[in-house]
């Protein structure tokens, strides 16, 4: 029951994160890099939720992300639907591997992997676009746009973990209560 409530909260959190990051403008001082909040929310879910629930979250996150960023030009799709699902399954497995570790390790790993995961996601998008369009067109701005969101997420992650874990404790854990009664 608790996992289901957590999963629903994660779905809502990812949705809100997409709406908020859509409203935030690019940062000109960081070569047009954008704040990415959805991977942060997903990574928190991956480190908290049991494996099957994490997979459901990866599916939701990947599908949402692919549809949100789907770019159709001249009847062609640059990043096919489903690619992000596979990416978030892999990222979720990696992050979820640290689920049973002590709290301090979890915060550290969560911060690091959310940052790396965000930048790797942007790098994956850039490489798929490059592969689709052909030619290698690297610019300094591309490096900024890949790395800066990851760094921002890694810096935000401990604070997010603190807030989210406090909210998490407010959600009643029916299963735990049942075990205690027994």
């Amino acid at each position, binding site marked *: 029951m608790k996992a289901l409530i957590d999963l629903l909260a994660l779905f809502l959190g990812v*949705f809100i994160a997409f709406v908020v990051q859509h409203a*935030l403008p690019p940062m000109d001082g960081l070569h*047009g*890099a954008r704040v990415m909040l959805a991977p942060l929310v997903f990574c928190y879910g991956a480190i908290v939720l049991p494996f099957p629930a994490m997979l459901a979250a990866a599916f939701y996150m990947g599908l949402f992300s692919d549809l949100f960023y789907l770019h159709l*030009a001249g009847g*062609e799709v640059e990043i*096919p639907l489903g690619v992000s*699902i596979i990416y978030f399954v892999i990222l979720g497995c990696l992050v979820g591997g640290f689920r049973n570790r002590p709290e301090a390790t979890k915060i550290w790993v969560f911060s690091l992997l959310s940052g790396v995961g965000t930048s790797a996601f942007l790098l994956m998008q850039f490489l798929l676009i490059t592969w689709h369009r052909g030619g290698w067109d690297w*610019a300094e701005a591309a490096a900024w746009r890949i790395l800066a969101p990851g760094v921002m997420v890694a810096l935000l992650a401990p604070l997010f973990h603190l807030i989210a874990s406090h909210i998490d404790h407010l959600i009643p854990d029916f299963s735990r209560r049942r075990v205690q009664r027994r």
Partner: protein
Amino acid sequence: MNRLNIALAVGLVAVGIYLSTLSAESLGAMKANFMSLLSPFLRTGTAVQQNIGSFGQRLKTLDELEVENTQLKTENRALRAENALMRETQSENQRLRLALDFRARSPHRLVAARIISRDSSTWWNTVRINRGFEDGVEADQPVVTDNGLVGKTATVSKNEAIVILVTDESCQIGAKIEGTREQGIVSGVRVQEHAQEGILQMKFLSKNAKITADMEVLTAGVAHGSFPPGIVIGKVREFQRRALDGQAVVEPAVDLSAIEDVFVLVGKK
């Protein structure tokens, strides 16, 4: 990890692979439905962002006025504020008058649209407009202002459409340089330094072409293309001679960071 978990993960990856094989048409339809569902929330988010932005601007103006006019009376301040509001109305009136005039002059059938949000992705330069297939807008139709070309429509839903800006690399336009016989392909660059402004590149020009700065670049209107001939794309900023051909750097005619109202060319009059 137990076998069931491994099977679930493999199953999900298989679903991902299956989804990646879907055709562009079905993906377009899915995206259009997704846009319709998400639209009210995204509009709210954008409106909140605009309100916060304008609130900040108002505070700044008030601060400046306070510094400059500490000695002025309250009445004077109220009059100044009123005057500023009237100026804003006047400039909006002038902008809309120009837009109406442009629509009357144009040989094409134009659908007026307003930009409702700017793109939130890192790699694509797009905007959303408040016109969809219910208003007669279809995919791959040119989007213009009275100053020139803005881009072309991509995904079209019931009441909204995504416009790929000319500064995006995937928006490729057959173009010519006015006053010459030179033709080439204009597109944006892969990573623009500034997401909404940006520069364009015109490729496949002849190496020995006599192209100078400030020459106007227009759509060529190639057969079966999306763009009719003669729409201003921009001005040549620089011409580079390369080993086999020439390439021009083009400055867009439209200030893409400031536009609010656009027109979609939906056919001939």
